[in-house]
Every structure is written in structure tokens, then in C-alpha cells.
């Protein structure tokens, strides 16, 4: 039952036109650079991409954006890529802006089988427009719906052969939540170890969430993104 995949084609076979795809990372940190690159080579479109940002201009998810493969973006900080605003002005992309904590929590809720939840974040602001407001024990909350997706493309540090994952420093960010919230979860990692080599008390994503593992071919270094 090895989950180790041989190539990018295999890793991305689950992604279909029209899919909702979760893409890990906070900027480049913890982003599945290899899988994103593979996605730009793949003949799919009308994707809904859920990711904190849509890359930078002409980089990462920014390439996918410029290829007009993204129908809708759901994230917290599109500002990092000026092209997003241009596309939005032209009506070429839908955007759903969520506070960063709400983006994270909604994916966790989706992965945990919840329908949605009430949060204080955003109450009374422009981002609450159209959202149900409810007072609970004297505090105002707004309703936020859970996010579920077809595929998650994530980045971890080490996987064991079963698919248990650990992360590295602040490259953890949204990745473990995305692993919970998608039907098919593909992870790129720096290292694959034998089952039993990861500390059972320190595993962050149990293998139950992971469908496929691929070795990273692009990694973030002090000098930028490097092919390995």
C-alpha cells in the first residue's frame, strides 16, 4: 500500500477541470512548489484555488492565474500578487476574501465534518456583509461555512512510507489543515523515511489523511527556489 508516487503526472492525476484545490503555504514558505509547477503544465481549468495568497506576479500560483486556469480564488491576502487585482477588475476571476484565521478554521471545520461555525472575527465589518449575525451569550458572532475540497496539494518536511507527516518550523502553517479538508491529499516532502521512524507523539498529520507522497524537486533556500 505504498503511497509513494513516481512522478508529477501521477501526483496530479486527481486534479480535474472545475475542481476545488487547496494549496498549502504562507507565501513561498511551506508551499508545494513542485506540485504547483506541475499544475501549470497540466491541462485543467476553472479551478477554485484555496490558498492564503495566489503567489506573486508570474510566480507559483501566479503562473496558473496568468494561464487563466483559476476561476475563483479563496484566500486572505491576494495583495501579494498585483495581477490578481487586474484580473478581478476585468471580471476574469472571482475572489472570496476571508480573514486569515477564518480561512484556517473553515478548512479545519470541513475536515472535521462540521458544517460551519460562529466567529467573532469580522463582525460589523465589510467582510461580514451577507453573513448571518448571531448573538450567543451576549457576544456577536458571524456564521462562516466550512471549506471542503476535491484535492489538497501540500508541503511537509518528512513523510513515512505510510503517509504520516511532520513539518518544518513555520512551513507548517495551513498544510495540516488542508490535509484534513480534501478528498485526495498529495504531499511533497524533503524526505521519505520508513514507518516507525517518526515519533508517534510528534506526528502532526496521521497517515489516514494522506493519499500520495512525492519527493520535492523544488525547494526554498536562502538563495530562493532551487531545483534539486
Amino acid at each position: 500500500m505504498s503511497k509513494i508516487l513516481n512522478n508529477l503526472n501521477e501526483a496530479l492525476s486527481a486534479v480535474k477541470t472545475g475542481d476545488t484545490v487547496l494549496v498549502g503555504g504562507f507565501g513561498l514558505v511551506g508551499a508545494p512548489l513542485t506540485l504547483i509547477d506541475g499544475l501549470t503544465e497540466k491541462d485543467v481549468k476553472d479551478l477554485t484555488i484555496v490558498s492564503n495568497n495566489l503567489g506573486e506576479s508570474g510566480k507559483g500560483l501566479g503562473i496558473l492565474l496568468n494561464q487563466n486556469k483559476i476561476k475563483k480564488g479563496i484566500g486572505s491576502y491576494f495583495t501579494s500578487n498585483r495581477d490578481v487585482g487586474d484580473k478581478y477588475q476585468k471580471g476574469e476571476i472571482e475572489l472570496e476574501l476571508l480573514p486569515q484565521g477564518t480561512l484556517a478554521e473553515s478548512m479545519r471545520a470541513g475536515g472535521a465534518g462540521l458544517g460551519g461555525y460562529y466567529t467573532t472575527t469580522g463582525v460589523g465589518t465589510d467582510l461580514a456583509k451577507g453573513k448571518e449575525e448571531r448573538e450567543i451569550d451576549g457576544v456577536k458572532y458571524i456564521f462562516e461555512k466550512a471549506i471542503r475540497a476535491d484535492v489538497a496539494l501540500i508541503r511537509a518536511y518528512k513523510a513515512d512510507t505510510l503517509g504520516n507527516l511532520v513539518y518544518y518550523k513555520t512551513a507548517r502553517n495551513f498544510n495540516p489543515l488542508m490535509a484534513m479538508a480534501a478528498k485526495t491529499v498529495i504531499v511533497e516532502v524533503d524526505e521519505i523515511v520508513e514507518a516507525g521512524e517518526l515519533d508517534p507523539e510528534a506526528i502532526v498529520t496521521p497517515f489516514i489523511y494522506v493519499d500520495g507522497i512525492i519527493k520535492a524537486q523544488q525547494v526554498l533556500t536562502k538563495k530562493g527556489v532551487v531545483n534539486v
Partner: protein
Amino acid sequence: MTGTMNKTDMQHLIAERVAQELKGPCAVNLGIGIPTLVAEYMKEDNIYLHTENGLLGVTDVEEEDIDPNLVNAGKLPVGEAVGASFFNSSDSFAMIRGGHVDVAILGALQVDETGLIANWAVPGKNIMGVGGAMDLLVGAKKVFVTMSHTSKDGSPKLLKECTYPITSTRQVDMIFTELAVFEVVDSQLKLVDLMPGATIEEVREKTEAAFTE
């Protein structure tokens, strides 16, 4: 006199003043810009810095120790303190929204005379990013705002009412500029300190919001 101060000096002046208000033990989240500078002036060693991308125990880092996968919310390289811990984004915002972070220090575009702030969007432009600003405002036990007292064109940023979209219906606790320090008490601004070289007349002149002295 403050009119002749360059931007960097002004930012450091504000950051140093904010640092005086931080009494450990506490956990503090620093926003981008002036707030990031506050770390340089913290005197106590039991103030722990939280960054919403998943680290409690942020420190500065030497150039040779920079790790590209260890950054703060501004995507700048940082180090990790003794006793630091890493966690995912939902756990990080659980800390923030759940009231477990003692102080958030944020920048602002505008502050109104009841202590509401606007710091995430400008009317007429696409609303493209919000990040963790709204979460920090609803969740931190105390919120401190740092900003230049006026805009580049000299117009006041402490206003009767914000003309930009507000970030939260929660009022901030303190406001720090290069001219003055205000506390928000009973939904009113109260001047609690003049910054070095600033006069009460200058503060009055450059502040649209009502405040008590």
C-alpha cells in the same frame, strides 16, 4: 521639531515608547511596520512574541543563521527563542481569537474618536487583503496601535469617524504616534503622554478626533 524627524527615526521613537508599556510575563503579537521594531526596545526577558503564521517565541536572527522556512507574518526571517513552539494556522488563530495573546501591536490607517480603527482597506481600490488584522483585533486582550500622527499630506489620521472601512467593532486600548500617546477610556480618547518635542498645541492642531487631556 518632530516635523524635521526622518521617517525611520520617527518609527523608532514610537516603537521605543510602545515597548515601555509591555510588562512581562506576556505574549505579544507584532504587526508589520512600526510594531516589528518594538522588539528591539523590549527590556524584559519574559515577553514572548507570537507570529500568526505559527510560532510562539519569535526572536531576531543573525544574517548567517537565516532559515528561509522560519519567518514572521511579514515574511521576514526570524529566529526562535528558548521554549518556542510551532503550530498550524488554525491553532495559531485559536490562540489569538480565544483571548490567549496578551497584546497585539498593529499599524493603522485611521483611528476614530471612540478607538475604532481602519487598517485593511482603502475605498475605491479593490479589497485584496486582510491577513490576520481582524482576528487580532477581536481576540487580543489588549490592542495597541502605532502610526504616524498625520498622513503624508498632513491631514489628521485621528478622526471623528473613519472614512475607510473599519477593521473591527472592537475599540483599541492605546494609540501611539510620534506626537502623543492616547488611551481609550469609556469610548473616548484620553491623551496620556506627549512625545519628546511635541506640544499640546501641535497635537490639538493635528488631531481631528476629540480627546481629553
